[in-house]
């Protein structure tokens, strides 16, 4: 049983303290006593050696990309080059204060300026804000820009955002946050946006369409030209969710497809680690006609000097206190300089090669409902296994844990029953993919011969299957001395 840091507390054992001996003793505070703590905060009191051992032990109960294969569809968990981590830790970056005058932080500003240019070229957009802290945060910026654009034109009826039924859940949630009504567009039999449906759905009330391309089935929306025409003819804007950019970067650009706004996930496509849930970064790019609405400030250059431009009266405002998750930007910039144009394309090509290779082989074990050329990911279904042996996709995922893999994304997209969404990325070798295929083969065989093995999985992880219902029904979200479980 793992102990919490609080349960390791031995009063008096932490000897960390800072002195005041260099200061005069008679400095009287004028903070009223009623505003002061009666005693130090009730934090755990643990010696340094035990703190180090505690978090080292916790790290051994976590699993990162550096530990092994992480084929998590739409999350693009590729290897994060160590050189980026090194660069982000340079003291010239980590010790720079965000409010220092521009002439003291030219290195930071230059990096941001050049990164913006690289992202513009990769996406075919004209300007980027690097401020959003995550993909969903970028979506918020995008939705606010859509709103600002229509408002600025006096086109106030537009209160609907169209979202395909295969979209990431953040898309509808974001649209809702900004006060839009969400209307879902069904996918057609081929897993693509149904053009007829779309044509029917557009009206003078539609503010825009949020689309991922390649979509969450890993399929390229071949009719993107027509989709853009339909949306634009109706006066709406086209928003690109960049979660799946890894499947096309260097080969095709959202800007050329007619998208007006894009967000990117630097922690996916651009190889910045995900940190167990963040930080990420979700820069937003726009075409020229929307650049006036981008958040302030933007980085500008004049006579070889870089500066922050706050003088943008049509801006939607700020979405973060400072300039974005700068350290994440450093990692993405380092990655792109290391790759160059050929490397960007090579990464994409190999992501797609690996995905199709897996699709071909996994497809023989588990049906792939939309089984044709995919981009960086594909979706298989465990529907038949469930029918035949009572084994769910979740059971399969948990069994993969026993074999030392992080499972694929499961139960998404919602339009595929018992979905298993697999994305190998370009940084996995054929040998590793082959081993994964053999493992999946073994699991499918186990499902037929000994389904209980899957239902009982995992067995080799620090804990076994968890009671999620109990956790939600009577939430215990913090430690209490009296409430400690033995």
């Amino acid at each position, binding site marked *: *049983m*793992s102990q919490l840091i609080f349960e390791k507390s031995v009063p008096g054992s932490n000897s960390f*303290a*800072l002195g005041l001996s260099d200061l005069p003793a008679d400095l009287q505070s004028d*903070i009223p006593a009623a505003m*002061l*703590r*009666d005693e*130090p*905060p009730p*934090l*755990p009191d*643990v010696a340094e050696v035990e703190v180090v051992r505690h*978090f*080292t032990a916790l*790290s051994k109960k976590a*699993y*990162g990309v550096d*530990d092994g294969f992480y084929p998590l569809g739409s999350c693009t968990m590729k290897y994060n080059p160590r050189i980026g981590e090194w660069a*982000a830790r340079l003291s*010239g970056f*980590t*010790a720079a*204060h*965000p409010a220092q005058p521009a002439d003291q932080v030219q*290195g930071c500003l230059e990096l941001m300026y050049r990164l913006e240019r*690289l992202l513009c070229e990769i996406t075919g957009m004209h300007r980027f804000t690097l401020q959003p*802290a995550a*993909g*969903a945060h970028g979506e918020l910026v995008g939705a606010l820009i859509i709103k600002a654009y229509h408002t600025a034109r006096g086109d106030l009826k537009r209160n609907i955002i169209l979202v395909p039924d295969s979209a990431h859940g953040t898309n509808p*949630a974001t649209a809702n*946050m*900004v006060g839009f009504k969400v209307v879902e567009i069904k996918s057609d039999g081929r897993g693509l946006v149904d053009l007829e449906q779309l044509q029917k759905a557009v009206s003078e009330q539609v503010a825009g369409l949020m689309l991922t391309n390649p979509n969450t089935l890993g399929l390229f929306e*071949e009719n993107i*030209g027509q989709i853009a025409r339909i949306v634009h003819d109706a006066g709406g804007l086209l928003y690109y969710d960049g979660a799946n950019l890894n499947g096309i970067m*260097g080969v095709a650009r959202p800007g050329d497809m007619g998208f007006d706004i894009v967000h990117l996930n630097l922690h996916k496509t651009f190889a910045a680690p*995900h*940190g*167990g*849930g963040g*930080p990420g970064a979700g820069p937003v790019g726009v075409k020229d006609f929307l650049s006036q609405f981008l958040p302030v400030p933007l980085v500008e250059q004049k006579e070889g000097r870089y500066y922050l431009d706050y003088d943008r009266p049509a801006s939607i405002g*700020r979405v973060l*206190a*400072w300039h974005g998750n*700068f350290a994440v930007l450093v990692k993405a910039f380092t990655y792109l*300089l*290391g790759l160059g144009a*050929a*490397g960007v394309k090579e990464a994409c*090509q190999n992501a797609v090669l690996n995905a199709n290779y897996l699709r071909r082989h996994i497809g023989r074990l588990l049906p792939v409902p939309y089984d044709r050329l995919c981009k960086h990911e594909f979706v298989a279904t465990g529907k038949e296994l469930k029918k035949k042996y009572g084994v769910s996709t979740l059971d399969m995922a948990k069994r993969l844990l026993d074999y030392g893999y992080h499972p694929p994304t499961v139960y998404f997209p919602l339009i595929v029953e018992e979905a298993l969404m697999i994305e190998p990325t370009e*940084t996995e*070798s*054929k040998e590793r993919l082959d081993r994964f295929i053999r493992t999946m083969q073994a699991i499918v065989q186990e499902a037929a011969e000994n389904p209980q093995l899957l239902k009982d999985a995992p067995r080799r992880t620090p*804990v*076994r299957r968890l*009671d*999620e219902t109990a956790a939600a029904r009577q939430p*215990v*979200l913090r*430690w209490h001395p009296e409430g400690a479980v033995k």
Partner: protein
Amino acid sequence: MYVPNPPRVRQQMLAELGLKSLDELFADIPEQLKIKGELQLEERRDPLQLQRELAALADKNTPAGTRPCFLGAGAYDHYIPPLVEQLLLRSEFFTAYTPYQAELSQGILQAIFEYQTMICQLTGLDVANASLYDGASALAEAVSLAVDVTRRRKVLLAATLHPACRQVVQTYAAGDRYQLVDVSAPRGVLTVADVESLLDKDTACLVVQHPNFYGCVETALAELAATVHGAGGLLIVVANPVALGLLKPPGQLGADVVVGEGQPLGAPLSFGGPYLGFMAVRQDFVRRIPGRLSGQTVDREGRRAFVLTLQAREQHIRRARASSNICSNQALCALAATMYLAAVGPRGLHSIARRCHQLALYARQRLTEKGFELLFSQPFFHEFAIKIADPAAANRRLFQQGMIGGYELPGALLLAFTEKRTRAEIDRLVEVLGGEMA
């Protein structure tokens, strides 16, 4: 560059797919949409060039690490115990994904659970989430929560709130779900009298920063809480977590929601990010709090375990009806904060806060001796503003003399004193500023 399969292996894989070239993998993309030729990116650097170039770029800055920094205004140059940086470099932590697969992520889930507990301990509230993007966006989420809970539309913001926080709330308000009303605070802190006339049946909440943007301790918090509660609204406090090593937890003074910027807890300045927004709420709002929550449960053998819970609030389940669109948070920064708080411990945090405060008191003593006047004569924690005719010129002079000066306000300079500053550095500051009288 990071593709492990050599060309021969790629050919073999292509052959298995019945394809001849990598280009055929993109047959589903219409020709006219494909990039002709190559992207116009910067030339590829080899690893040695890359390291040299990034190091040179970092060297173009003159950051706080190289000289004493008196700049704060929401981002602070605090001491970070080396164990924080070293433990964070364990790749199981930083290369992991969001812990949806709980059995494989107990380390991260337990750390989040510990983080939630520590934030509750600091703020004096019942429930904390697993972090938000930063203090300003956390406040925007808090305002949205207050509007939802009270079903009211009017949001009162103290004028002493960090201007960037105000701007972020303003941006989020574009959804038209609420209206912002500024509450002026002519004395540099908010009093009940400043607020009373603005309270009505539509008031969702009052937002107060503590210590506020000008560094002042909001001494009337308890009275403000009682007043706003009397009108049926909530009190949201934006707090500095290091100050909470010394100051009474806002939850004990009546705050319903406490949010803030967690950067002072073990995150480097990093030119503004990544930082972390923390949020703690009263028990009643547990099903309204945005973002991730790690909850305790048991596995099938009855062992204690942790899992992301109450996910029904979230975007991937409720989609358009979710309470927030938060998906990624700042888990690694929250982990750093947990390590930081564990490393310094209860007395350590108190001693850090006390040293910050005492250094600031010393600086005030020295500056007032020199004839400087404070912008507001209120109790402060570790930051205060002095009146100065030309703050930009003062900052230039400080920089020439090897120091990073304060945050420039109209006719004033906001100076911050973290525990890293020394008496000698403050003496030097005072000496250089001495010739720059108001």
